[in-house]
């Protein structure tokens, strides 16, 4: 691998979101010369705009996700605000049936949960109300603070000799044979032995420059935050079609409900604006936690998020470019990041993930995908009116 000379690195990672930063940190702690390039500021995309949940029992990375989160503060040397466990409240029978799937998936992998009756929910969740069908207490998972975690990865990466360059947008590649040898950016070209593209919505465009087709579509989603309220025993309380948490400071931070498909070309450096959708989120939060109805909403935010056609991640080495690894977590990346970063490190350094079976996350599963899949799935932006 090339020596560190300031104009390149053994591994260049495009994308300073949680996935790229975690991968960079895992590589740096192994002593690999790694450089993370971020087009804007770290976590500017979906990584900094999510509910902070860490309970993805459907994923092949679940076990590792669960193992790593309780250790992460110590491993990184900076706080993530991780809090274990989660209660999910169902207000009706449909939600009760839906949320039950988590129990079965988790149980199969050796994780415990409990079924709660309405009285037990109210006992555990002081802000809950009367109209409850039931709930589940997941003795796994939990939540962390996305921004704090992002910065923790970034600091930990740098503490271990890795490098991070923000405001450095990748615009093209130098190749030699089937290999990428350089990344062209707004700050010059950086040589690389290995390249990881983990650039959120921009992943598809960047990979296509190397002849690798990654089917992705971008969307906008929204969240709201209230003023701080007295801390509940467990902050990881959600349900009623919402995800989110009471932060350790006491704020209620929740999202959920409809997304809006947007053209990736429109995402660029556009700020993700929130809309009156915040009212519909507020309405469902009032139903979920009626005793918080007086709390004042002090912020809302939106984020741009990419999805693959089946909503599952791609973490793969496409092969047509020998030294390329592509990663998109398809709208569920924050919680899985400790494990996804480790998986990417494994792919980059040994060619295969040493702790989980990533065969369900191969890019090749889309080989027969209909070219007009976006239309077929209704994943298209709406029309823009004439306006003023």
């Amino acid at each position: 691998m090339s020596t560190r000379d300031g104009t390149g690195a053994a591994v260049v990672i495009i994308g300073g979101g949680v996935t790229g930063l975690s991968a960079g940190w895992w590589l740096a702690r192994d002593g690999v010369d790694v450089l993370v390039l971020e087009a804007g500021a770290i976590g500017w995309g979906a990584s900094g705009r999510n509910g902070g949940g860490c309970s993805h029992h459907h994923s092949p990375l679940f076990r590792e996700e669960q193992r790593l989160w309780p250790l992460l503060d110590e491993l990184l040397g900076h706080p993530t605000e991780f809090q274990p466990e989660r209660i999910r409240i169902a207000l009706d029978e449909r939600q009760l049936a839906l949320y039950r799937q988590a129990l079965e998936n988790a149980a199969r992998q050796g994780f415990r949960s409990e079924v709660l009756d309405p009285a037990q929910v109210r006992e555990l969740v002081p802000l809950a109300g009367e109209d409850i069908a039931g709930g589940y207490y997941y003795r796994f998972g939990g939540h962390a603070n996305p921004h704090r975690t992002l910065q923790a990865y970034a600091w930990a990466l740098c503490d271990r000799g890795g490098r991070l360059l923000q405001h450095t947008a990748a615009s093209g590649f130098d190749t030699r044979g089937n290999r990428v040898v350089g990344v062209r950016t707004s700050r010059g070209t950086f040589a690389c032995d290995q390249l990881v593209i983990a650039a959120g919505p921009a992943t598809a465009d960047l990979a296509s420059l190397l002849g690798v087709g990654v089917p992705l579509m971008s969307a906008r989603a929204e969240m709201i935050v209230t003023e701080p309220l007295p801390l509940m025993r467990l902050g990881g309380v959600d349900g009623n079609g919402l995800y989110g948490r009471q932060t350790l400071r006491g704020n209620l931070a929740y999202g959920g409900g409809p997304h809006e498909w947007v053209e990736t070309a429109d995402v660029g450096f556009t700020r993700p604006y929130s809309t009156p959708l915040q009212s519909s989120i507020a309405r469902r939060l009032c139903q979920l936690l009626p005793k918080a109805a007086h709390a004042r909403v002090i912020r809302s935010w939106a984020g741009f998020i990419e999805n693959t056609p089946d909503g599952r991640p791609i973490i793969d080495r496409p092969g047509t470019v020998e030294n390329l690894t592509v990663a998109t977590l398809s709208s569920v990346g924050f919680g899985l990041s400790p494990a996804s970063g480790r998986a990417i490190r494994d792919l980059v350094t040994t060619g295969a993930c040493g702790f989980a079976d990533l065969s369900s996350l191969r890019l090749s599963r889309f080989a027969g995908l209909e070219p007009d899949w976006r239309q077929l799935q209704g994943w298209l932006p709406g029309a823009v009116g004439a306006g003023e």
Partner: protein
Amino acid sequence: MLAVPMKSRAHAPIGRDRASVAGKQPPIEESTDLLIVGAGPAGISAALTAVAGGARVTLVDENPVPLRTMGEDVPLHFGGRMAPTVANRNAVLESILRARPQLAEAIEAGVDVRLGTAAWGLFPQRRTARWIDGHVAGLADEDRAYLLRFRQVIVATGCRDMGVAFDGWQRPGVMGASAAYKLATLYEALQSRTAVLLGGSMEALQIGNALLNAGVRIAAIIEQAQSIPGPAALSARLAAGGARILTGHVIERTEGDAQGVAGVRLARVDAEGRRSAAQLERIECDTVLLAVAAIPAIELLEATGCSVDFQAGRGGHVALIDGLQRTSVPFLYAAGDCAGIWPSKTQSDATASREGRIAARAALQALGAKPAGLEEEAPVSVDPETRDIEGERLAWVRALTLHCAGAPFVCQCEEVTAAEILGLSPPRYLRWRHEAADTGRLVAADPGCAPHPDVVKRLTRAGMGPCQGRRCREQIAALVALGSRRRLADIALASYRPPVRPLPLAQLAALPEAPAMGEGWESWFGIASQWVPFWRTPPAYTVAGGRGEEPAAGE
């Protein structure tokens, strides 16, 4: 879950994503041609001009502000100095109409005037947010929140006061100068007998004189600089009314009783802001007027996406406007103090009113109305730059906050000190192992770039509280500039987000929504295949083969 694809005329069959926002526009009953936010001199002039030109005009003003909101120092730093009469909404409405006689004229002329109505967001359709047609404003009065459609909007939201932390600045009685002015003149409800004025700029002296006229005794003008920056005539008038002129001084601390401030202890500072060891002098007062800087109130403009920049001649961060008061957002105009504050504009309402008229004329033209009989006016220009507002603000923060004996909270809501801001320290409730405050971290957070206050905010929580950063935003920017040895103008503005006024969940929740909103509500994208456990996922995915999955709960 996917619906069965339907035949479309021109292209491939189009599926429907029932979990997306498509087709879920909220019902919006009310509409107007021109919305004007803020019924001060600029807003009222704009309304009178536009209604004369034949437009349907809706003029909203958040005063009277709900008492609870005032108690949180929103939208101004009221410092708890509201007289009990503010609870009497009708009395306040009457005093507002007395203070602004042109409001009656506007109502008479057919303007739809809505007092006690705050605009908490402007939501234009844009490429990345298309689901609601046209332009929509989020409004809220004391009990309800609602949406109003508009075609053009003039924002005339005035100004607020820069906060600066010193020991005891959290005491009731420490308040913004313009908050005091508004309470005295608009609400007739300022509970203050004796005040000290912290700051000697034109804006500060102007308010000091207005409060003197309203019966408040101004005991002293306290200015960190070695001379009073504002006009001598204005400080002389205050001196004649009994005010001591104390240049080269800062407040060391407030001293208080059950009612809040009872006095201040002063310290002498030199030109570098360093304090002398001389004995601290005490001045009796019940109020400290923060008049270090008047800040254009741009939260609605910035949150809507207007291009914003630091313009020293306009008093700091303002929306970029052209000669017609147009911002970078085509249907949005800024007028009055929120479009910029400079000394000659502060001296009378004439400039603000003119800006309102210019904006209204431009809006009328955009609406296709004929501004018949309305005289065209030359664009407003700012004063030739004579003041170094960057230097002034940095000097205040250095002298008052950085050289302060204690460690006052710069962000009162989240209780964050200057050292914690400069060291990017995690909040104390995390009980993270203590690291010595290290400004290197602030600079290293994004090497080569000025530290961004949004990053400071996320890591330290400074600026994230219920006052929405109104009391600390400019101080934090100044601290970041001092800590990174950069110009204040190089420090970005921490972003604003709707709702730009705190709104109770229950009130926000009451906006009507389309029935389809409930039918397709999913906690995440509603992509069934996303949640199929990895041991059951098929080896290949196509749209045709991917249908038929059971609904699954997103995580």
